[in-house]
């Protein structure tokens, strides 16, 4: 083989190699991190917690180091403002080894309307911090709302109900919160009136305050 042909071959190979490298490194539309699914395993608790904490400035939440109180056992009859509501279901399930979540579904029929209210009460037997992490999972990281919490006009303010709380209007025609998430001491609480129609006679923020009062009335463990 002539020297000139060898040089030509080397030049061509170099060009092809350079083009390949350039193409593989080119950032731009269509390229995403993590384009392969994980080989196995589930999302780790640490990853989840870190992600959720960062999004909502978890370290600034009030109440850390507060007293660990006995579990508040929700009773419908404790709340006159829930008169007319009936218990649809009451389920308990574990939360990531941190405690138990109790889900209570209530409904009230009024003429042709059916109003619903879902309460989730998460209780940690060991610490306020754990209950605050439960709120992360129950109300924040399990919906898309975390993305928008930092867009609140009065970022850092709250409904003034619990150690940490926020409300939202999830129904088109309403202006009062139809959804409230809060944590008080070692109990996390979520209240949700659904998406169809909200009970015009139910003040969810006032109900939140009453629930917080019941939580605070429990003896210290």
């Amino acid at each position: 083989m002539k020297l000139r042909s060898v040089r030509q071959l080397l030049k061509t190979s170099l060009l092809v190699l350079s083009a390949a490298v350039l193409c593989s490194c080119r950032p731009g539309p269509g390229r995403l991190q993590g384009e392969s699914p994980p080989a196995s395993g589930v999302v780790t608790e640490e990853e989840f917690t870190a992600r959720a904490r960062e999004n909502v400035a978890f370290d600034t939440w009030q109440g850390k180091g507060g007293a660990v109180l006995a579990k508040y056992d929700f009773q419908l009859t404790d709340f006159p403002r829930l008169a007319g509501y009936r218990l649809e279901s009451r389920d308990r399930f574990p939360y990531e080894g941190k405690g138990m979540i109790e889900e209570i579904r209530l409904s009230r029929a009024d003429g042709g309307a059916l109003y619903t209210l879902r309460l989730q009460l998460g209780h940690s037997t060991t610490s306020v911090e754990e209950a605050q992490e439960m709120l992360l999972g129950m109300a924040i990281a399990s919906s898309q709302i975390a993305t928008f919490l930092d867009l609140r006009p009065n970022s850092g303010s709250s409904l003034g109900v619990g150690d940490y709380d926020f409300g939202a209007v999830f129904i088109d025609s309403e202006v009062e919160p139809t959804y409230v998430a809060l944590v008080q001491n070692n109990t996390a609480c979520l209240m949700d009136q659904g998406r169809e129609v909200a009970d015009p006679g139910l003040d969810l923020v006032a109900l939140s305050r009453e629930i917080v009062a019941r939580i605070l009335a429990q003896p210290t463990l």
Partner: protein
Amino acid sequence: METFLCGAARFFLFVLPFAWLARADPPPEEDPPIGQAAGWSVSHIKFDHARGQGMADALDIRLDFANDLQHAADDAGEWVKGRRNEAALYVANKAVTLKVRIVAPLNVASADIEARAVAGGIRNLNKRNVTFDNQGVSIGPGNTAYVSFTPDGNTSLTIRKVVDSFSWRASNIRLRGGGVQAGPFRIDVSGPHTTYTVVDLPTAPWYANVNAQPWVSALEFTIVTAGADGKRTAADAAAAITDFVFGGYGLQYDNLGFGTRGYTAGAIRAVTFDLTRFMTKANGIKVNCDDVAASMHSMINLMGGNSRPLRRDLWGYMNQAALIGHGACNNPFFGANLPMPNPAGVPVVDPRKVVGVDDTARDADADGDLDRTPFSYHSTVLLLPGNAVYEGTFGPNKNVGFRPFLRASIDTSTAAERAATRLRLQGFFAVTLR
């Protein structure tokens, strides 16, 4: 005469052969014509006689989350004549056996027994000789009254629900005093028996605990309501289930609630999915991607597939696609209010489902509305082998590679859009049923 001969020739040449070809097959029940015998009874049938998850008989199942089937308590079988008739579940294309207790007249010492499917929906049971004790009860191995019967072929090749009865026959009946009655005689009819078939053994979340033995209610929902009936593979079933969840069940993405879960609860890596309420839409039609992924995962794996729900966080802006229950969309939280406190009643996300292709959340309009909202995270379903994506929240997407799915679904056309896709967390999560 000539006319008559021509007519006759036409009749024999054309009409008769077609009439013979077109005649209806006699139903199995009438073939052969047999007599009826008194004093016989097929009193018990066990489909799941070995108990457990072995595939040589029916699988362990229960009625629903809260209720087991009665035969689990007394081991007397799914069929107890006059008192019980419970469903059975099989894995496709398996050789199985049934255990049957038969009562004969007291003067019968033995007989050849077989069963024919009345409507041809289930397999016939092969003929076998059965001996009877002095009380007229069949004698099975180990002093049990249950004798084993073998179907004349393997279980269905496809996912299937069948409701059919057995017509039981006896022949070669040997009497205690001597003498033989040739038969065959029709001795009893059992059923209608409901049997379900799935392509393989159900996988997690099924069989994770006693409440997660496959539910009859979930089998009925997945096979009949969701349309997995007739599918030959887990991938085919997954495609049918995807179409059903996306467009056949009246569900709608929870745009106003920022994708709050409707049927799942708990944290991320271990959610509880309320399939019981999902099957009646007891919590309403609003769902998020966790609900969609958990429901599809539960149903696909009930059919014997091996799917896993995956969460990816951050997800980012969606390319325009049909969003479950809403149609074309690139702004999944259209019309939503920001978390409170905020200006009361003012919708702060653009109310349009489709906005500018390069708009982002930070491009506030003059009125303060956000133009376009991204998904913070997204959950989808991957089916093994191959990790093919089955996506029912938008699209829908069926049997798509993970990488092509990401590239087609996530809008990365500008730097601002790419920033919203920064990968923070990606992994599978476990589902517990209730």
